[in-house]
């Protein structure tokens, strides 16, 4: 992100846009993993709180994801408490406009693939799902996740490992690969997660379902 945080702190919109485009999708998916009723609202509240507190934020671009995911988690917890006090009825999700230049089918398949992946992630126990989400989606290291969740880095490491192992054992996860190989499900644009994980892996442990 370069100096995006510094630019956003000085009111430069390009800094904000860089941060937003880099973090907003993962922030929404993380909030969905937390089973928020309205992830968009909580994400907007998260960004608003981040804007307000940005002058007091002393970290750099590397610290910004941990900071904003911490804010998002607190907002999600607050929303869950409010929801428990005043239950609400959900409304069907409004289909967003498809941007020009992309096919509707591709966009729908992409959205379905993302939704299915999040749904698979939420099948894990809550602590494992959140740890894996912060690890995969936010790209945080174990120490940052531990500070957010109030656990030790070792516990986070074990939690992430168990979560990924459990996911790999699921048949529907294996079906993902089969469907991808057969071409029945179009693969979304390659994110940086799996390839980067593969590239950065040093191979001292291996997940073998």
């Amino acid at each position, binding site marked *: 992100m370069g100096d995006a945080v510094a630019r956003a702190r000085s009111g430069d919109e390009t800094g904000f846009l860089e941060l937003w485009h880099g973090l*907003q999708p993962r922030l929404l998916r993380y909030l969905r993993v937390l089973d928020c009723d309205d992830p968009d609202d909580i994400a907007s509240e998260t960004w608003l709180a981040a804007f307000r507190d940005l002058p007091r934020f002393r970290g750099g671009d590397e610290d910004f994801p941990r900071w904003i995911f911490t804010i998002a988690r607190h907002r999600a917890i607050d929303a869950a408490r409010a929801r428990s006090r005043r239950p609400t009825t959900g409304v069907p999700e409004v289909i967003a406009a498809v941007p020009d230049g992309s096919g509707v089918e591709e966009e729908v398949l*992409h959205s379905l693939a993302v939704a299915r992946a999040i749904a698979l992630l939420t099948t894990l126990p809550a602590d494992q799902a959140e740890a894996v989400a912060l690890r995969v989606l936010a*790209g*945080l290291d*174990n120490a940052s996740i531990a500070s957010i969740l109030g656990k030790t880095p070792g516990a986070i490491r074990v939690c992430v490992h168990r979560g990924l192992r459990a996911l790999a054992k699921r048949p529907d996860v294996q079906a993902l*690969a089969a469907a991808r190989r057969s071409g029945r499900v179009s693969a979304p644009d390659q994110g940086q997660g799996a390839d980067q994980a593969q590239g950065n892996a040093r191979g001292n442990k291996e997940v073998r379902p």
Partner: protein
Amino acid sequence: MTGEPFDGLRINDPGLRALITDLTSPATAAERAGLDADLTAFRAVCRSRPLPPGEARPQPRRRRRLASAALTAAATVLVLSGGFAAAAYAAVLPPPLQRVAHQILGFAGVPGSQSRPPGGSHQFTGSRVHGRAGKGRGATAGRPSGSPSPSAPGSRSASPASPGPSPNPAPRHSQSPTPQPTSPTPAPSPSASRSAAQVTVTLGMAPGPGKGIVDLLASAPLAQQGDMVELQDWTGGQWKALRSRRLDKSEQITFSVALRRVSVTYRVVLLATAGHGQAVSNQVVVPARPHKSNGKGSQG
């Protein structure tokens, strides 16, 4: 982003790789829908919060232009007000403005239109012939309404110089002592008009012959021997004539005055004659006499 994504876990399972690929895929259209709202919130927050020190907010050109215009206007106002204050302090403003300035800036020592001896330390050039020239008459005839008049009470040269009822309805005591050539004056004689010349008179101060006495030396190089010079002091808000003497052959005259308990401002007035007009000298401030207890001599 921070750290390695999976803490050294090798993702060999294709299903897990596909799952992670889906999770980290680019944003969908629905996920990008909130950009406008968040950008609006970002702009609102940036406008409402102060900038941290050392960081400058990018300003549109129009705002910079307005700021420049405001800066120019502020500088102009500052210069004008400074000039007004300087002029007020020098007491060169017209009397109404001087009074206003005195009311506003009196605490800073700005004099009123009557409280300051006129002329300051400037020399007055007697380029105009006032009244009829002649011995003892030119001093009062045609003297402006605000000018010090020897006929004022206490003036030693009032009696011989008074021309009787003056055509000037203004009060005889000076309230605005700056010489003003606006009062109705008797028409100068043709000879006076012809011989009107600029004369100057200067006043200096030197130690006197005795203790507690100083000499005020009046010099009028362009005047003639025998021209009358009047010594005046600023007392009670007006110039009061103290004594009159004639210039000697070197166009000088010395007035010896005693030091008083308070400092006194003196000046001399070269009375108008047929050859020149009236001239007023610079002002000299004679300091107060020192107290006897300190045993020091007079200052200046």
